[in-house]
């Protein structure tokens, strides 16, 4: 693009004019910041101020703009200029709101402001306005793996929105477990009776939908590529394999019931008359509204006991630790099968906590009205025999009881078909990385068979379910353009699976649409920048390919990293990982930050004016500091805060540069890592902490105290704590003295 022409604009509003010497700041921008156009304005964000900038862009050819005013989080509408590189020197939240308005403070406050202007100019000088990644594909067909209620719903909903769908089901029929049900838990008022599954209707709908192509008896033997340009091999039982091109993937591979044979003490596998919920559905379908007969001798069931949480909510570690959520409603529904065909059948549900959230409460009441008996108790044993004996502790009457039954139903819960556990090798980030890739061979068969360097399937979270940030952004997986839904993501009933599948369809469509425009997906949606690397400089150390939280980077046949831009989430973790610093984005690179660090004016060691570099995650730590400023919470005037996309993008060279340049301390602020991670790029913060755990050697090498560098987890709510951390560093420096590295 054309030569860089920097325009620097200093605002005098919000007290900046009173508190700061803006003329001096303009000189700084001009002399040191090399800004060709420099202006100040009484009130930069109002229409006149903005118009002034626009004029310079149009008439003066300004293409790089420095806004020396408020935080980059404020006034985004006013300062959003198209096709122009913009940097923000945060003089309001970053300086005057966190410094006392006193004569003594005037000098260092001004120095602080001047540094931010220098930094703004330095940053913008290294920035380019990004243009969309040219290698993107624009295939918008949606692949759905799994033909159960979730997969079928995703297929129909995506098609309704006008998108072509490929539906792959490993069995010979669509419908999955819900298709095997006699009836479903009701989803409408009065929530009183079981309702039709509706599956036959859905199958018809799919068969007659020209946008939906169905593969039965088929599995995915290979998935490669990226959003907008996936290529998958579909292997049929018959032996044949076809290759299809698609834009995005929905993994709806569902669940298997927990094997009741693992529960012999509850009669699992010991008696044909002890069945799981799926087994009971079979019997109910066979009876089809008439009296249900038991497997052993075909005798009409006169008494049935439902054992809740069978092998679930288990604390021994032998069975499932979680609750499958739907089983209480399901047992209620199944008890109704009996009561509806013959009110004189004794149906007892033995539970510890009856879990019927929402309108399930109506369903529960309805069952009681129908005469189903609910007993709070813990079942210890089911004794096989012509009349099964269910031994349990009645927790209300606090005594041991026995219930005789013709049939016993164990509510055994759901086990996710989530493919192989690609992290099975071990939790801690593995820089050599080999292990992770091979770890693929796990207990289960792969569902997607991804050719990704980081493994064949989606990473798992807990209990074998797919990883997702399961509160704010439940759909976000660590494989861009691949979304999971239904019980593979979280145990759920059919109604929830339908909602979930509909949402997943949207995410898949969205991923394809964004990929086609070469734009990033969540959370930097719409970001056009993408990482590039200097092949000549690369040492093939593979750190980037291993550390990318999203498995976006593979290796080409020459063992060089192969960036799949459309899989990239633009967090910059690869950039932070690269020891030879060959990875960068147009508008965010080792230089855009590195030159900011260097631009800061570091006074000599006799000045008693230390410098503290604060690298703050822009998602949590930086906003926390902003809000501290809004609440006028002050922190050390020696701090220079640089927002980063993610702490994972922090390259240790920045710390080295800072220390050699004579900074006295460095503070890194990132999001919470670990199991309950809050890092918006999942592993970024974790990676940064891991790397920084090794920084001590560097420091010792420079014969500097290790206390000079601190890495910490900061939440967006740490409005008081974040400034405190900065001040603590200032105090530490007071104690150990200024850095000797100044010159």
């Amino acid at each position, binding site marked *: 693009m054309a030569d860089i022409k920097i325009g620097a604009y200093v605002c005098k509003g919000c007290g900046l004019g009173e508190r700061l010497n803006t003329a001096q700041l303009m000189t700084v921008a001009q002399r040191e910041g090399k800004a060709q156009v420099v202006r100040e304005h009484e009130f930069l964000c109002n229409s006149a101020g903005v118009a002034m900038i626009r004029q310079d862009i149009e008439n003066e050819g300004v293409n790089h703009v420095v806004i020396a005013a408020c935080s980059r989080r404020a006034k985004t509408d006013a300062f959003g200029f198209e096709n122009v590189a913009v940097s923000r020197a945060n003089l309001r939240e970053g300086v005057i709101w966190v410094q006392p308005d006193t004569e003594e403070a005037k000098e260092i406050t001004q120095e602080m402001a001047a540094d931010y202007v220098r930094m703004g100019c330095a940053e913008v000088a290294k920035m380019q306005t990004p243009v969309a990644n040219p290698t993107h594909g624009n295939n918008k067909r949606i692949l759905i793996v799994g033909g159960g209620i979730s997969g079928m719903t995703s297929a129909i909903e995506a098609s309704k929105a006008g998108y072509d769908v490929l539906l792959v089901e490993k069995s010979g029929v669509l419908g999955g477990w819900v298709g095997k049900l006699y009836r479903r838990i009701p989803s409408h008022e009065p929530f009183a009776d079981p309702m039709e599954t509706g599956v036959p209707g859905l199958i018809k709908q799919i068969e007659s939908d020209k946008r939906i192509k169905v593969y039965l008896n088929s599995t995915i033997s290979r998935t490669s590529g990226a959003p907008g340009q996936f290529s998958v091999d579909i292997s049929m039982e018959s032996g044949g394999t076809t290759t299809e091109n698609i834009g995005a993937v929905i993994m709806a591979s569902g669940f298997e019931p927990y094997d009741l044979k693992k529960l012999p003490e509850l009669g699992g596998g010991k008696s044909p008359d002890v069945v799981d919920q799926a087994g009971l559905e079979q019997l109910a379908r066979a009876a089809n509204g008439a009296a249900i007969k038991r497997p052993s001798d075909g005798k009409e069931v006169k008494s049935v006991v439902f054992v809740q949480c069978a092998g679930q909510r288990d604390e021994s570690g032998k069975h499932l630790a979680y609750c499958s959520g739907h089983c209480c409603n399901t047992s209620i529904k199944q008890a109704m099968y009996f009561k509806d065909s013959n009110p004189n059948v004794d149906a007892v549900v033995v539970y510890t906590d*009856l879990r019927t959230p929402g309108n399930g409460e109506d369903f*529960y*009441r309805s069952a*009681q*009205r129908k*005469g189903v*008996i*609910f*007993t*709070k108790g813990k079942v210890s044993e089911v004794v096989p025999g012509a009349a099964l004996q269910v031994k349990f502790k*009645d927790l*209300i*009457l606090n005594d041991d*009881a026995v219930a005789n039954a013709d049939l016993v139903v164990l509510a055994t819960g759901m086990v996710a078909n989530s493919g192989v556990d690609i992290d099975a090798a071990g939790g801690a980030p593995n820089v050599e990385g080999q292990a992770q890739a091979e770890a693929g061979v796990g207990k289960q068969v792969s569902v997607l068979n991804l050719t990704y360097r980081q493994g064949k399937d989606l990473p798992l979270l807990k209990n074998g379910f797919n990883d997702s940030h399961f509160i704010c952004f439940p759909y976000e997986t660590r494989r861009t353009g691949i979304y999971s839904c239904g019980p593979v993501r979280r145990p759920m009933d059919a109604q929830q699976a339908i909602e979930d599948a509909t949402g997943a369809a949207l995410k898949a469509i969205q991923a394809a649409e964004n990929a086609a425009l070469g734009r990033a997906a969540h959370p930097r949606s719409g970001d056009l920048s993408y990482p590039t690397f200097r092949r000549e400089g690369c040492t093939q150390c593979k750190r980037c390919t291993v550390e990318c939280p999203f498995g976006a980077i593979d290796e080409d046949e020459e063992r060089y990293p192969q960036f799949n831009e459309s899989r990239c989430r633009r967090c910059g973790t690869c950039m932070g990982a690269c020891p030879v610093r060959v990875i960068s984005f147009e508008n965010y690179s080792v230089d855009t930050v590195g030159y900011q660090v260097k631009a800061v004016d570091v006074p000599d060691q006799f000045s008693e004016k230390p410098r503290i570099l604060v690298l703050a995650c822009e998602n949590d730590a930086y906003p926390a500091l902003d809000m501290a400023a809004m609440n006028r919470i002050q922190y050390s005037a020696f701090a220079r805060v640089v927002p980063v996309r993610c702490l994972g993008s922090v390259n240790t060279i920045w710390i080295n540069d800072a220390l050699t340049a004579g900074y006295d301390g460095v503070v890194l602020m990132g999001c919470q890592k670990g199991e309950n991670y809050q890092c918006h790029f999942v592993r970024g913060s974790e990676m940064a902490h891991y790397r920084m755990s090794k920084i001590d050697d560097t420091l010792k090498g420079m014969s500097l105290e290790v206390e000079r560098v601190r890495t910490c987890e900061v939440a967006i709510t740490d409005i008081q704590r974040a400034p405190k951390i900065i001040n603590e560093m200032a105090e530490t420096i007071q104690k150990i003295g200024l850095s000797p590295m100044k010159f």
Partner: protein
Amino acid sequence: MSELNKVMVEKYRNDFLKEVEANVEEGDWVKMCMQCGVCSGSCPFGPYWEHPPQEIFMMIRAGKRDDVLKSESMWMCTSCYNCIVRCPRELPITHIMHGLANYAHRLGIAPKMNPTRRFAKLFWQNITKGGRVNELKLSIGLYFMDGFSNGIKKGLEMLPVGLGMFKTGRLNPFALLGGGKCKGADDIHKMLKKAKEIENRRKGFAS
């Protein structure tokens, strides 16, 4: 009466819940309890209940027939209706307790010496005799429930109260000779006889 008890045991075998649903006032609500215990906690006489209502409901479902019907608990009900207005499942608990007590009483297995049972009997005889309460006879009857000497003792205890009532014109000594009588007393007798007859028929008590 205990004949009737045998009949019922035979008829319902181990299904006490069905027996209750069929024979106890509002009994078909028992199955709707979700064991939250708000009734048990709300009863002013709660601490005196061996088995509070919610537990009784569970015992009924668990088939503990004798433990329930022979219990003193239901007789502790003061008819304050606290449980009813607080029950999240809208069970008419007060009435169920009354119903259970009445049922046990009719089966002749309610605790013989339970004072409330005996007072209730006395009270009903008192009001049905003439159609209205005869307070004096009622209280005197009450005192002599456990024999003459006891009666005198109780009577003396209560004398101040009685005297106070008498002085303030709220107790009528002549009531001993009558009073509390409706003109239609005979109709009432016939009516009640009929009512009982119908109820027995309905609940299979007629033996």
